[in-house]
């Protein structure tokens, strides 16, 4: 039967000796400073080589757009609560860089139309849409926003936001669950991915 090797436990003096020699070696090896990898000389070409990623302008701009969609706080009816749930920690749209709900349309580029729109409210929605800076996108959320929903025949309700403003993505449901809303947002991101740099066409 073998006896297991005892671990080496140095005495205090020995430990001090090892520590001292380690530091001495490190000091001996560290007389010179460690040079920077980067060549900071004036040669422009060298510098550019280290700073340039090849891509297309469209791809770069679309990536920036889709990764920081800021919605404007403008909701008209019950679907809002599903949006609130989506923006809270359980579903967390912060993952898509869009947790910043802007109170001013001038700082926002996504209008999530959640809820029934009455004709009395329609001019205000149109004004908010027009105040938003280009580029801008609109999501119609819920049956009411898509087509008027259960209030479609009403004399007081707009049968769909697309009578008032152009809509990019339609999300059905009454109300759509947060997962559905996230799927809609994902669809919008895909749509933005295929955008071309010609936003002028949107604003007539």
């Amino acid at each position, binding site marked *: 039967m073998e006896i297991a090797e005892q671990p080496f436990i140095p005495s205090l003096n020995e430990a001090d000796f090892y520590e001292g020699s380690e530091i001495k070696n490190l000091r001996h090896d560290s007389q010179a400073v460690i040079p920077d990898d980067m060549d900071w000389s004036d040669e422009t070409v060298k510098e550019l080589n280290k700073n340039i990623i090849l891509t297309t302008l469209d791809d770069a701009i679309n990536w920036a757009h889709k990764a920081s969609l800021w919605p404007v706080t403008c909701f008209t009816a019950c679907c809002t609560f599903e949006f609130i749930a989506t923006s809270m920690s359980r579903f967390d749209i912060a993952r898509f860089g869009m947790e910043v709900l802007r109170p001013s349309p001038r700082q926002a580029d996504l209008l999530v139309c959640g809820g029934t729109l009455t*004709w*009395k409210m329609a001019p205000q929605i149109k004004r908010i849409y027009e105040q938003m800076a280009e580029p801008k996108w609109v999501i119609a959320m819920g049956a009411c926003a898509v087509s008027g929903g259960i209030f479609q*025949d009403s*004399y*007081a309700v707009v*049968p769909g936001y697309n009578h008032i403003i152009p809509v990019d993505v339609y999300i059905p449901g009454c109300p759509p669950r947060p997962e559905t809303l996230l799927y809609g947002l994902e669809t919008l991101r895909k749509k933005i991915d295929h955008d071309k740099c010609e936003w002028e066409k949107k604003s007539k």
Partner: protein
Amino acid sequence: MRMGKEIKMKTYDALSKQFEYVKTGNGFAEIPSENILECTEWLKNEAGYDYLEMITASDHNEKFLLVYTLINVVDKTDIIIRTSVPREKPEIDSLSNIWTGADFQEREIFDLMGIVFKGHKNLKRIVLWDGFEGHPQRKDFKDVI
């Protein structure tokens, strides 16, 4: 509430004794539309029904039915007054000079049902926007869109 019911029945009896045109039905009093002011004033000043709970209207094709609910706050009873106006000439006296609370309700009925309240000081649309065509709670209403 038993006591309240008895008081209410007494009021119905007193009302039909006071004005011979009153017809009492099952839980309401039916009166001609031109006597509405006289009746409600008497109920307010003599019978203690000094709170107007609500006014509402419904469309019965050849006539509009108007329903008034008054409350006696002290006795905790209510009384229901029904009257009707013809479709060709939907006009009735306004109660807004007796109860200020009738103001908005009469405006709403004018807006949606198209009944004109004579003596109302500010009879214009309250729910729908100015320039809306027609009165949407009428049965023959057709939206333009």
